[in-house]
């Protein structure tokens, strides 16, 4: 046998002329459907209103008050959410304890519950008579503490917080899942208590996750409507947030104003997303 016969069959290498274009056309085409839908939604809003109408709607004192309350309530609800979600997300991520599954499921309830049901549940919680003397949380807060909740601004924040916090807990859980617990273990061998290991090692690594949780909570709070309507009402200048404004303007046939407020909400959401994304990239993990 000659060497050429024993060696593997020599083949002339020719590139197979297969284009990647169909791949990108199909994948890009499918992806574009969703992006296009969102762009068209905003474009339609823009086309429907004019700048003058936009300005005159925003000049209304009711809408300006709603804008201020929205900014304030969303920020407070998001801060509270991150404050609660950070320890809760950490405990759920790091420890296996009896009842963990139950707590994990309870956290998801506000996400799956219909918004109106959530509002109704909050209302019932604050007005349920307890015991033979009919003790009621709302009456106690109003008469003893001097802090009325239902149909006031605290109800707006509580309604926003209830849903926003659930999303923040999920985000913080994933954040801590992605942080290697070994560094905290080593910190404990070096003299840290569990609390010190959390504060000095885990928390600084979670800063990006906390910003993400704040963003998600803020965005959820901005879009909240059903629970606010039921629990806080829709009183102009008092419990009106921008999502309520859209509803109130629509209900009195002011479509132009409703669209103008909607556009304002789009702008706010975009600004918050961009600012927080910029803040997030400034941090190194």
């Amino acid at each position, binding site marked *: 046998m000659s060497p050429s016969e024993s060696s593997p069959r020599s083949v002339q290498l020719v590139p197979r002329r297969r284009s990647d274009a169909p791949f990108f056309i199909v994948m890009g085409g499918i992806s574009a459907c969703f992006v296009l839908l969102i762009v068209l939604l905003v474009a339609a809003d823009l086309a429907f209103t004019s700048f003058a109408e936009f300005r005159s709607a925003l000049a209304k004192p009711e809408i300006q008050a709603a804008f201020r309350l929205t900014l304030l309530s969303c920020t407070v609800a998001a801060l509270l959410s991150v404050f609660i979600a950070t320890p809760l997300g950490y405990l759920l991520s790091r420890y296996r304890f009896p009842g963990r599954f139950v707590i994990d499921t309870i956290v998801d309830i506000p996400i799956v519950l219909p918004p109106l049901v959530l509002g109704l549940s909050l209302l019932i919680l604050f007005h349920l008579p307890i015991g033979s003397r009919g003790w009621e949380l709302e009456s106690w807060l109003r008469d003893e503490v001097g802090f009325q909740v239902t149909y006031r601004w605290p109800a707006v924040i509580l309604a926003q917080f209830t849903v926003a916090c659930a999303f923040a807990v999920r985000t913080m859980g994933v954040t801590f899942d992605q942080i*290697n617990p*070994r560094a905290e273990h*080593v910190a404990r*061998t*070096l003299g840290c208590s569990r609390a010190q290991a959390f504060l000095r*090692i885990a928390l600084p690594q979670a800063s990006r996750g906390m910003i993400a949780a704040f963003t998600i909570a803020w965005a959820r709070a901005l879009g909240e409507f059903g629970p606010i309507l039921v629990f806080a009402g829709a009183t102009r200048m008092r419990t009106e947030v921008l999502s309520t404004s859209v509803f109130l303007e629509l209900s009195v046939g002011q479509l132009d104003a409703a669209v103008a407020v909607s556009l304002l909400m789009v702008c706010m959401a975009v600004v918050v997303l961009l600012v927080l994304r910029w803040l997030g990239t400034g941090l190194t993990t």
Partner: protein
Amino acid sequence: MIGIVDATIHAGNFSLNNFSIEVQRGEYAVLMGQTGCGKTSILEAICGLRKIHSGKIYIQGTDVTNFPPGDRNLGYVPQDLALFPMLTVQKHLEFAMKIRKVASSIIADRTRYMSDVLGIDHLLSRRVQGLSGGESQRVALGRALAFEPSVLLLDEPLSALDEKTREEMQSLLLTIKQTTGVTTLHVTHNAKEAESLADRHFRIENGSIVS
């Protein structure tokens, strides 16, 4: 000294039953055995990161079985190093001393001394991302030794290094052994490494420990 008396550890699908280990003060002991036989579990039990089913653990003659990890006064270098991603090299060296509220002048002296011994003084201001394998290993060793623990636990400290760095680290471990005299338990599966460093050998065979 390090003493494990009649201990039983259950971990995953294996258990080590009623074993004992004793390393005298200042001794350098090497614990060998195949991958997955429980070497790391023994170190974690000494650290207090893993509960033992029964038995006692002694460090410097004190029964530390129920002590939290931070009160056992030991330095631990895990196999994955687990450096702190947000801290600089200098902060790593200072970490255990700051937790113990050591005076800042002593912290500065110890940090300078450790970085000098380990040859990492040029890295002090850097974060740990981007350090080479050998450099990371030195930082982990410095973090574990800077507060002068009575015991040093090393989990396969040379396994992920290239040959040249491995030799450098091996001679560094010899230097540390001679200068600090810290009681050391070093886990490895490399016989050559064990031969050049150890005063005392232990081996895990079929779920029990032979010395």
